[in-house]
């Protein structure tokens, strides 16, 4: 049940316990205890909403920042990653193989704020060698969901 349960709620975290139980063919008690286990084990880390901010009047700017760092003895990249992810404006931090070390995703209200963050906070950290900031111009697809309006398919109403 675990895998199927995760697949369902990854797409729809608002689904009711009763409905979950029906479509998984389980009892509500079983589903509930499995959900609690998954939360306890840190497998389910949160229930978020996917919002297409572009459609609101709220300004949001997202930047991807490639960061090259000097790993620290005994702590590798973890210490510097922690310094970065503790900033609330940092949306995500990933350790990356290849041309740079950390990928930082930042969400702010304006270009100015992102630029301030990079120059005042990020670049001034000791171990940071360089940063390269990329701004996201448009999100086509996010979390597996196509954000631009999908055309309606023209299926016949009745077919044999």
């Amino acid at each position, binding site marked *: 049940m675990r895998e199927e349960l995760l697949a369902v709620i990854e797409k729809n975290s608002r689904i009711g316990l009763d409905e979950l139980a029906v479509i998984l063919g389980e009892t509500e008690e079983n589903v509930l205890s499995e959900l609690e286990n998954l939360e306890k084990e840190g497998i389910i880390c949160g229930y978020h909403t996917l919002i297409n901010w572009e459609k609101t009047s709220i300004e949001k700017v997202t930047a991807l920042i490639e960061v090259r760092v000097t790993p620290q003895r005994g702590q590798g990249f973890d210490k510097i990653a922690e310094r970065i992810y503790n900033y609330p404006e940092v949306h995500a931090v990933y350790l990356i193989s290849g041309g740079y070390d950390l990928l930082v995703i930042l969400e702010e209200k304006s270009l100015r704020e992102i630029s301030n963050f990079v120059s005042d906070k990020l670049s001034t950290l000791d171990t940071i060698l360089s940063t390269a900031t990329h701004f996201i111009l448009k999100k086509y697809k996010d979390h597996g969901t196509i954000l631009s309006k999908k055309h309606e398919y023209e299926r016949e*109403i009745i077919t044999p």
Partner: protein
Amino acid sequence: MTKELSQKVLDIKPSGIRKFFDIVSEMQDVISLGVGEPDFDTPWHIRDEGIFSLEKGRTFYTSNSGLKELKQEIVNYIKRTQNVDYNPNNEVIVTVGGSEAIDIGLRALCNEGDEVIIPQPSYVSYEPCTILANAKPVIIDLKAENEFRLKPDELLKAITPKTKILILPYPNNPTGAIMDKNDLEAIADIIIDNDIYVMSDEIYSELSYKEKHVSIASLPGMKERTILINGFSKSYAMTGWRLGYALAPKEIIKQMTKIHQFAIMCAPTTSQYAAVEALKNGDEDVANMRTSYNQRRRFLLNAFKEMNIECFEPYGAFYVFPCIKEFGMTSEEFATKLLEEEKVAAIPGTAFGQSGEDHLRISYAYSLDNLKKAMERLNRFVTRLRERKLNLLR
């Protein structure tokens, strides 16, 4: 013109589904539960392969019986799912949907006066195709109490010295019934004893929710007398690509290929290239779609239970076949009223044969949201019907 059209064709009744479609197509805001095709788009990597083949200019005819590579993949697929060996060179033909395979298979086998046993409720084309092949349809009315499986005694009763073919449509459209290995074994001996062919329409084989589908061709002594029909429409959500296939002994495939070559030439080339990709790399897509269908299936069965509508648990295809007998209407009256009063389109069971009476075919090739709305409307409808009935009794 004064000269008459073909009497045989004139005598064929138009599909019962068609009649219903004409009513629905003039209405607005209808929630449909009436389709017999997946709601998923064809998986992108399969579409991409079709597009790639077009870009490459692969727009020629293929050999009559299909692309060599595709025939090989089909044979591999049957080997890995059913453990039956077929020769890709002369025991498989790629057709325009499973429906063409049904047509040319019947035409290749039947002589005037041969009898073709058709268990019903079942897909709408078996009976007319049998008639067009100059054979005589012999209908078995399957029973709800057997969950619409074909039982040995029913088969025995239908067999005469003229019986040529048994059509075996499982997993079944419209009932969702399956025949598991035990059910098949129970009829296999009768088939062999009476020396008849089986046309096994396994187009829904991948949509089996209890255990893996077993083909009758995999039972001892059956391969040599079975025309196994399958295709890409239901399993890979590829209805519009029009691609199916038949596997059979080479003597039969040879004759089917003749009809196919003169009537069709070859199945669409783009679709054949896409289908190679589907068979090579599509297993995961099929598994994901099956999981989704299964969730919806459980949802609908639970909804019927809550509404107190009688419905056996179907383990195949993407249909449920609830019984609406308690409302005292024919399935056509019920479906028409449901459409008029609540704008929900479901297909009357009788569209698939007289034994579909008292039932409705409800498709779950729809999103859960869509199904939820439809069940709310259905609930309102049956509640009202029951109240009316109570008021009449008072």
